[in-house]
């Protein structure tokens, strides 16, 4: 009855590409590597499109079980893929943006060593990300989850000869492990209490529980633990510290993994487990609070950053904060909507930034840029589109999604005006630092040495051969993705949040619809039923919200213009005026240092003093050494039996044989 979609091919294709490039790439020419990588990634994209086309004909959710994986008693986990509206959206975003970024990367990395390695990793990432999205149970999702972590580690440390890159990779990996720890415990709890990790089964078991019972503990715990995992992957407070450092990786990586796709995995996971969160108000609130704080916090840091990619990194964090806020107020569809648009414009921003860096020859400090808008018009215009999009100006994509989030933050029963206020302020900050970046980069006069390229390259490890000082536009292969993404970030939002919401409704309200018939519906359906937005009632005030947020964005634009174009000296004065606070913000609130003091140092010292000197050397090595000494002493005394004389050996053997015979006969006699 259901057409077989062969979903399994979608993750598999990039894996094949990764395998080919990784195993044989060393011998292949760059063209061949490019061909393979693009072919398989594009094939995955094509299949995703195919799925989307025959999508309306499908009875959703569509599950495709490939094989049994684990069977332990009643517990069972399969290699099964799961397709519904949510995963379809993610599928399209990931494959589409991923494909574009692949194309871009061809131009960006062309001169690099380890070209094949890069694309093999990139395809590998695609494989794991798609597994994560299409997984039909938490376990398979976790595989993808860990896999993208691995891919991101490999790609951050792509220039592994550079200390900063290597350590950044390690940092990302370790911090993610903390989050995964929480995720794992959540999974164990689910297994223990629901005996399954399959989405359908778990949710079917979960949804009869009403918040009063659920919030009594289990679901809350699970939710909070899942949140920990999401925080690790999506760089939320307190686990966001790895993302800025992750900018050590090549820019396409930053665009693909650390802006568009991987970091949104947390949001996807929370949205996917919405059933649990809706029944755990405390956890839900925690999500909202963390999201909100992160949004504000990261935005403030972003204001002071001077490294173009760092600014984008912090803006990514804060946008993710927005999505979490949306999840926290149970506006999952809004979160996913923002996820999508954010994938467009943030990917575009990074790519454009990469193009800029490429243009000025590896320079990343905005203070040494400026006036580039005539030198690299294509990059300029695409960047402009993205900037307006993220700042939330209509009719750009960001506007619709961010607007929807803010509106829900206020109106939804889980929300409150505090979220909204902070959200609006963050929107202001966002547009401020984005336009700051914009002005600093493209307006004014060029502040960098024309041929300051070379050392800049070496420092940033960016393509060395770009170091011919003249500022130049990027090649076509890099511009095409920019343009496409620009178009998307302009029109990406025109579907409108309501339609999007309705599109996703079967996912987020499916179980409740089933529930209507169920008796459990009778006791407090409202508690079970998540707030479905009633746009018509809130109609007028929504426009008010819209006006407010847009004006906030405009305010940011004006301030940025004033400070960085009109009165370039003003920022220093303000900085002096603010003094310590400015320093704190400039140094990212010393969070890294704080973590170092709180966690890293004690850990290192503890392992050195107790584990290494104490246990390892004191106990284990000592045991081994003394054992060896004892053996030597004993053998010193015994080895005189080894006279080297054949007959004495034979004598011993004969004695032993006689003893054995005697023993056996004694046994037999008894």
């Amino acid at each position: 009855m259901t057409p077989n979609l062969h979903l399994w091919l979608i993750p598999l294709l990039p894996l094949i590409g990764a395998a080919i490039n990784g195993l044989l790439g060393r011998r292949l020419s760059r063209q061949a590597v490019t061909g393979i990588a693009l072919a398989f990634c594009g094939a995955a994209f094509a299949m995703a499109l195919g799925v989307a086309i025959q999508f309306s004909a499908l009875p959703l959710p569509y599950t495709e079980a490939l094989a049994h994986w684990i069977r332990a008693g009643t517990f069972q986990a399969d290699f099964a893929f799961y397709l519904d509206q949510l995963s379809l959206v993610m599928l399209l975003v990931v494959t589409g943006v991923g494909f574009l970024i692949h194309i871009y990367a061809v131009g960006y990395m062309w001169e690099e060593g380890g070209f094949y390695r890069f694309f093999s990793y990139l395809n590998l990432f695609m494989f794991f990300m798609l597994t994560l999205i299409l997984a039909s149970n938490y376990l398979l999702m976790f595989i993808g989850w860990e896999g993208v972590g691995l891919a991101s580690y490999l790609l951050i440390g792509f220039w592994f000869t550079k200390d900063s890159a290597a350590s950044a990779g390690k940092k990302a990996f370790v911090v993610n492990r903390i989050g995964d720890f929480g995720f794992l415990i959540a999974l164990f709890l689910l297994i223990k209490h629901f005996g399954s990790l399959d989405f359908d089964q778990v949710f079917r078991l979960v949804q009869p529980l009403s918040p009063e019972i659920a919030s009594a503990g289990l679901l809350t715990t699970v939710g909070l633990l899942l949140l920990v995992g999401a925080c690790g992957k999506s760089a939320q407070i307190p686990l966001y510290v790895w993302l800025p450092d992750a900018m050590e990786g090549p820019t396409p990586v930053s665009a693909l993994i650390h802006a568009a796709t991987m970091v949104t995995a947390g949001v996807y996971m929370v949205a996917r487990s919405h059933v649990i969160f809706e029944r755990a108000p405390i956890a839900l609130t925690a999500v909202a609070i963390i999201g909100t704080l992160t949004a504000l916090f990261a935005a403030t840091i972003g204001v002071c950053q001077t490294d173009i990619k760092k600014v984008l990194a912090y803006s990514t964090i804060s946008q993710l904060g927005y999505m979490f806020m949306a999840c926290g107020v149970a506006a999952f569809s809004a979160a996913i909507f923002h996820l999508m648009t954010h994938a467009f414009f943030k990917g575009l921003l990074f790519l454009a930034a990469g193009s800029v860096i490429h243009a000025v020859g590896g320079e990343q400090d905005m203070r040494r840029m400026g006036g580039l808008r005539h030198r690299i018009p294509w990059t300029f215009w695409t960047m402009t589109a993205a900037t307006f999009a993220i700042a939330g100006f209509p009719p750009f994509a960001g506007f619709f999604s961010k607007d929807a989030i803010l509106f829900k933050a206020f109106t939804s029963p889980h929300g409150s005006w505090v979220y909204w206020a902070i959200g609006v302020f963050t929107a202001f900050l966002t547009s401020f630092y984005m336009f700051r970046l914009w002005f600093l980069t493209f307006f004014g006069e060029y502040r960098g040495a024309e041929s300051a390229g070379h050392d800049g390259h070496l420092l940033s490890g960016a393509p060395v051969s770009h170091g011919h000082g003249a500022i130049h536009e990027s090649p076509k292969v890099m511009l095409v993705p920019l343009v496409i993404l620009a178009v998307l970030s302009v029109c990406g939002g025109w579907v409108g949040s309501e339609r999007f919401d309705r599109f996703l409704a079967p996912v987020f309200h499916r179980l409740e619809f089933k529930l209507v018939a169920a008796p459990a519906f009778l006791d407090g359906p409202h508690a079970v039923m998540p707030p479905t937005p009633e746009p018509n009632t809130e109609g007028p005030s929504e426009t008010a919200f819209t006006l407010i947020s847009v004006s906030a964005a405009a305010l940011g634009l004006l301030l940025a213009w004033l400070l960085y174009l009109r009165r370039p000296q003003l920022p220093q004065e303000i900085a002096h005026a603010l003094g310590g606070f400015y320093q704190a913000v400039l140094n990212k609130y010393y969070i890294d240092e704080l973590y170092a003091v709180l966690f890293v140092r004690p850990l290192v010292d503890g392992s050195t003093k107790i584990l290494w000197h104490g246990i390892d050397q004191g106990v284990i090595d000592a045991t081994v050494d003394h054992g060896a000494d004892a053996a030597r002493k004993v053998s010193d005394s015994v080895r005189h039996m080894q006279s080297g004389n054949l007959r004495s050996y034979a004598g011993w053997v004969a004695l032993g044989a006689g003893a054995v015979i005697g023993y056996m006969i004694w046994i037999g006699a008894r």
Partner: protein
Amino acid sequence: MLHLIVFLVFGAICVAGAVNLLVQSHPINSALSLIAVMGSLAVEYLLLGAEFVAVVQVIIYAGAIMVLFVFVIMLLNAGAEERTKGSQVALILGVPGTMLGSLLSAWVLLRHSGTRSVHVGAMPGPPKEIAQLLFHDFLLPFEVTSILVLIAIMGAVVLAAHSDSAPQPRKEG
């Protein structure tokens, strides 16, 4: 009755030869006494109705292996052995141990299986049936032993061959 006598006679020869092997100081005498043992063992086999085994015993053991021994003795021109005191362990522990084991087993044998008796020719071993066993039921072991023999041949050649590149024999103090 006749068979018992024959058994005892040749058994006596066996034991005598074995003991002689021990007491003789010159290897060639030991070798000859061992040949005597083997010959009389062949007769014992005949008593047990295993004609084929008996003949093969004579051909292989007496005819081939022992010839090899005698050959080596002649080749190395081995003289009477000197009674060195290499190892007291062998005498002090080994011999008593052996004696203990053998006496115990002999005791058990005489005590338990003394009743049954073997009829002469009770079960003649015609070569055909043995061949049947050897080439059907025990085919795999047979082939394996053939491989073993092959390896043994090569090993013997390698070991005994004079390699000029080999270092000159050194005196062992």
